């Protein structure tokens, strides 16, 4: 009896503890769309306090257990792109390192000598490589290596995830095999990638090398294609020119070759694991005006408990003085580090930042299940957005959103008027149940009962309660449906399993709303959880993508953002803020705008 009781207690204890850990870990952003995005902080960026020094080790502490992907064709997380792009994985173009967000969002040549040259119709782009580019074995990095890297994106049988802009934009016919019974139907294009080789001539016509110049022929005008090449267009050694390298295909992500100032010395995934980067002696600094390469070593420590991580960096003792946080400060420590959401306390003045993160948070609404726009408007109007934000942490959590384009996207953003006049009258931050009831009455149909899907964390459990209560005031019945975070997107993308609306977040792939509006509200881009099928909207997106004049295009995105809000494809909640910090002996510590990351390429340790 004694043992039975004990085993029962132990099972319960483990179960509860397990639940707590799961919930705590889910508290970090569980979205499967962690992407790059421009940021411009509401807080002042601290100025570096020391002259840059060469040498030492910078430690990165993270709760994550591994990087999503280091393969140049698969890396997609903004922080990962920023870190590896600054250390081992150069791209044709990249962004300027600057504390000024407007400057930092500016493109510059990286492997390429400049930001590329387009023809008059922007459907053909050329980039010329710099002289003296090398791989970590000292061999020359050639145009063929860039071409080979791009070709891997087409190998859908081996490279199973990552950005697919190459497939989307290059002028290569789609796969003629559509019968699912045929194994070749897995390919997205008529070119099956370098491992299979089918359609190689199609690829060679679309991507060609002439000496050091690589040319891309596109299937449509892409005015910002030189931004596109920051994502998934990085080189991989062409086996033909590098016989010593066996392209490990899918497992290349575990040990990619470096063309930057560092190379991988050790990579052990999991809790307690490390990624250690050491100097790449073959790197030619003269070919790289961007990366300063100050520290001798970068060490990433995986699986650090976030509470422990915060305390280590606050204490900043020993090696932790050279540590930076790869994540966010825990809510309970914000008052220790900041006096308000924009201002660090004196002890953290030069080592803490509070800036917009890349994400706009919103609730998607399945427009096929809720086709009546008045119903969707009623949902938006009924929501107590102020309480939702307060539950997330108040002003530290961010600003109330009015669309899916954040203000830090510069000229792409304009107020949508969603909460002022878009629905005919102003909507208070706390919601307007009476107005919601009126909209339901105007719809001519009864409001259906709703279910809200969300990736479960303790905070979102409370968010669900707030949502249900505020909708109830407007007579809308909502059932909250918690889903384990790891399974969330797998479920909500399933037409059968998903319910009427749910939680989501999104950040752009580069500083242009072309990577927001299209992916979220059309089937191209793969994040159309709202299941929008409005042809007029799709046509308008295509028109905007083809617009070569930047100012005109920006206005078109503004209008589409407003139209999407008028139709309430989503209900925007917050434009998120992120607070993070580092140790006392590492500088400069500011959030680099293009990816909302640390400025890795110019970081150094101080004595």
């Amino acid at each position: 009896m004694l043992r039975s009781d004990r085993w029962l207690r132990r099972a319960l204890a483990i179960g509860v503890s397990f639940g707590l850990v799961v919930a705590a870990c889910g508290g970090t952003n569980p979205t499967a769309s962690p992407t790059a995005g421009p940021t411009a902080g509401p807080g002042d960026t601290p100025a570096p306090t020391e002259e840059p020094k060469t040498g030492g080790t910078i430690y990165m502490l993270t709760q994550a257990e591994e990087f999503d992907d280091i393969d140049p064709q698969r890396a997609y997380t903004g922080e990962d792109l920023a870190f590896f792009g600054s250390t081992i994985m150069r791209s044709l173009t990249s962004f300027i390192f600057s504390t000024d967000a407007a400057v930092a969002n500016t493109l510059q040549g990286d492997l390429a000598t400049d930001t590329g040259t387009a023809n008059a119709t922007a459907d053909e782009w050329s980039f010329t490589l710099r002289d003296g580019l090398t791989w970590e074995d000292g061999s020359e990095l050639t145009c063929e290596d860039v071409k080979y890297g791009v070709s891997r994106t087409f190998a859908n049988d081996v490279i199973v995830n990552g950005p697919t802009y190459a497939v989307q934009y290059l002028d290569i016919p789609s796969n003629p095999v559509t019968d699912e019974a045929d194994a070749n139907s897995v390919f997205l294009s008529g070119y099956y990638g370098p491992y299979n080789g089918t359609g190689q001539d199609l690829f060679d016509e679309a991507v060609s090398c002439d000496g050091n110049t690589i040319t891309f022929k596109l299937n449509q005008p892409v005015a910002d294609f030189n931004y596109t090449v920051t994502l998934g267009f990085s080189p991989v050694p062409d086996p033909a020119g590098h016989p010593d390298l066996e392209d490990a295909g899918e497992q290349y992500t575990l040990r990619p070759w470096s063309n930057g100032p560092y190379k991988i010395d050790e990579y052990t995934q999991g809790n307690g694991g490390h990624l250690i980067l050491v100097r790449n002696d073959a790197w030619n600094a003269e070919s790289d005006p961007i990366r300063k390469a100050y520290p001798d070593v970068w060490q990433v420590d995986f699986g650090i408990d976030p509470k422990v991580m915060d305390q280590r960096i606050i204490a900043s003792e020993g090696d932790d003085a050279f540590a930076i946080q790869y994540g966010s400060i825990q809510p309970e420590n914000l008052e220790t580090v900041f006096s308000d959401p924009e201002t660090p306390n004196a002890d953290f003045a030069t080592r803490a930042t509070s800036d917009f993160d890349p994400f706009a948070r919103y609730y998607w609404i399945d427009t096929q299940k809720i086709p009546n726009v008045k119903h969707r408007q009623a949902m938006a109007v009924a929501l107590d957005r102020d309480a939702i934000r307060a539950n997330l942490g108040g002003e530290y959590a961010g600003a109330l959103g009015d669309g899916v384009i954040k203000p830090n996207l510069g000229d792409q953003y304009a107020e949508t008027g969603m909460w002022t006049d878009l629905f005919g009258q102003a909507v208070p931050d706390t919601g307007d149940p009476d107005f919601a009831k009126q909209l339901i009455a105007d719809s001519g149909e009864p409001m259906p009962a709703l279910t809200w899907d969300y990736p479960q964390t303790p905070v979102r459990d409370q968010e669900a309660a707030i949502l249900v209560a505020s909708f109830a005031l407007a007579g809308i019945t909502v059932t909250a449906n918690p889903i384990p975070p790891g399974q969330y997107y797998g479920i909500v993308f399933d037409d059968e399993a998903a319910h009427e609306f749910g939680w989501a977040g999104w950040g752009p792939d580069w500083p242009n709303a072309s990577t927001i509006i299209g992916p979220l509200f059309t089937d191209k881009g793969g994040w159309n959880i709202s299941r929008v099928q409005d042809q007029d909207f799709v046509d308008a997106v295509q028109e905007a993508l083809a617009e070569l004049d930047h100012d005109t295009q920006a206005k078109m995105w503004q209008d589409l953002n407003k139209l999407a809000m008028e139709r309430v494809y989503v209900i925007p909640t917050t434009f998120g803020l992120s607070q993070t910090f580092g140790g006392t002996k590492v500088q400069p510590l500011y959030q680099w705008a293009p990816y909302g990351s640390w400025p890795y390429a110019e970081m150094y340790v101080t004595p």
Partner: protein
Amino acid sequence: MAGYIVRRTLGMGLLLFLLSLTVFFLFSLMPADPARLTCGKACSPAVIEANRHHLELDIPPIEQYQRFVGGIFFGRTFSQDSPRPIECEAPCLGYSFLRNQEVLTMIARAAPVTFWLAIGGFATWMVVGLTFGIVAALKRGRWQDRTVMGIALVGYSLPSFFIGLVLYFFVILFLHLLPNPQWKSGMPFKELGGFFQTMLLPWITIATLNAAFYMRLTRNQVLEVFGEDYIRTARAKGLRERTVVIKHALRAGLTPIVTAAGLDLAYLLGGAIITENIFNLPGLGSLAIGSVLASDLPLISGITLVAASLIIFANLVVDLLYAVVDPRVRVG
């Protein structure tokens, strides 16, 4: 005895088979779609279908299970029609497409960490639990007994995540008595000092809860034995009290404790999720929680199978030991 061993071993085999069946289908029925999870951001129905084929999820579940079991005994090849097939030699517990590694490789890397954590924690709690439990029994009703039972009550009441965090914050971060724990491959044979610095607090964390339990258990067992007739007989024969306690009371009283300890150790070898996470130890517990959070089904299945096998094996060993100690068990 031989017949008993054969029966029990066959039973274990059957149990393992049922376990593998349950684990496989239980996780196959989970609502998570691995094809979607490995799809990343730039996802489309076509990519999901490609992934489903790549992950061999487009074949009937029965065939998937056959391949799973076949892989354990004969090895298997993943992505067979891919130009880059992945060979997984027997015993193959699966392949994690999220981490691009064989499941067994990851388990083999994590197992030594959990092994040393379990052994150290086990030794600590057994020494502390038995010693103080015996003292409490011998000093029943006196201040020593009350003190030990008070400590046991407190220790038993504190959850391991609380103990771990308190130890971490005070011993490492505020008092700087130890460096941040950092497990390195090759420990403890390499960097013995670093090994003890890394494992000391995790051992204490694990041992606290268990030691408290074993204090109470030991005390109760010894006191129960003290009430037996043969102890009274031993005393009546005029044996010294020391001999009565050590030779007669403890020997009989500790037998069920050792049996329980064997099962607890096996349980711990399956991974100590909380402790490993707090102290950043790359053991099986950490691997398990990471796989669950990522819905990495092959890894979850592999770890569950290994951990459950350890428990089943430990049960077998315990049963056999019982059979040796108590012949009635063999015919029961």
